[in-house]
């Protein structure tokens, strides 16, 4: 099956373990580090191959870094490679969070900790608002065509969830349906 001998799963596991243990800032921060390791240092993939993988992982649901790990591991060493990469990427998170959670549960009622999180909570709201803007800009830029549709879907989704309290899962399914319908029957406003 294999065209050329890939790296052994053990090596893939360790590579992703290192990335998972030392990258702060989630998936978007991990992707450049994964590229540096997999393309530049280990030369397991070409730059082009890596770009393909990134664009694919963004069109699949789930955590970006995990998607990238599964895919790269699979390309390098089949299913054992995929499992090795995924376990490596996830294991540090899992262990570190267990440790932090156990600590935090013990000290969360400490007056100083309460004060700290009184400050952190509003900042997290600001952080998520920033993510909205960042993702929004990306979507608008990615669709030079059909921005009318994009805005209509966003507006409808917002109203359904915020005003009418519809379950977000249903809204996502409905939005997928709207995307399909629009591709079959594009109506107005689709000029470049």
């Amino acid at each position: 099956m294999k065209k050329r001998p890939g790296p052994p799963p053990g090596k893939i596991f360790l590579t992703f373990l290192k990335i998972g243990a030392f990258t702060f800032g989630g998936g978007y921060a991990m992707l450049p580090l994964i590229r540096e390791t997999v393309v530049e240092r280990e030369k397991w993939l070409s730059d082009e191959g890596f770009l393909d993988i990134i664009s694919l992982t963004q069109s699949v649901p789930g955590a970006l870094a995990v998607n990238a790990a599964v895919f790269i591991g699979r390309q390098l060493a089949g299913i054992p490679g995929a499992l090795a990469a995924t376990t490596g990427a996830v294991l540090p998170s899992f262990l570190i969070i267990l440790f932090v959670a156990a600590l935090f549960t013990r000290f969360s009622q400490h007056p100083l900790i309460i004060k700290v999180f009184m400050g952190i909570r509003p900042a997290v709201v600001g952080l998520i608002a920033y993510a909205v803007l960042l993702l929004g800009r990306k979507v608008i830029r990615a669709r030079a065509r059909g921005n009318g549709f994009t805005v209509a879907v966003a507006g409808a989704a917002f109203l359904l969830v915020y005003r009418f309290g519809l379950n977000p899962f249903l809204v996502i399914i409905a939005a997928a349906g709207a995307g399909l319908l629009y591709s079959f029957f594009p109506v107005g406003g689709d000029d470049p």
Partner: protein
Amino acid sequence: MILLTRLCDLFLSFSRIGLTAFGGGYAMIPLLRTEFIVARQWLTLGEFLDIIAIAEMTPGPVAINAATYIGYKVAGVPGAAAATLGVITPSVVLILIIAGLFQHYRSSPLVRAVISGIRPAVIALIFSAVLVMGRPVLVDFRAFFISLAAFLLLITGKMRPLPVIGLSALLGLLLY
């Protein structure tokens, strides 16, 4: 027995979230909120925001960090394992299925059409979550100030998320 059903619930809830969250960790926030604060009431809004902050402050994918933490909070170490496995299982299964034909998948007009609908909806969902979560959090001038400062520092590129959270922790100590 109760633990076992909880573990199954956690696994299934997180699988569903892993299967519908297009766009990574932030796309999961509205889904997590609906599932665990509103529907199951396993977390309060305050706890949820603390968990997101901690997930952001620790290394690794934010989605995995949040899943592990929520699972731990609901059902201890087994809960953490069930939630984490739940959130990654759809990724692993889907990608292994798609991998062989990914050139077709990526350029498939059907996939593009579906995603072109989902992307803007996801952003609207996150925005709605910001408004819903902001109301009970931004109760006074101090909270409003911290939130706005965090947003402006991030949007102008003056600071990355991690230092912003550090700064807000300091402001919390000073102002409250």
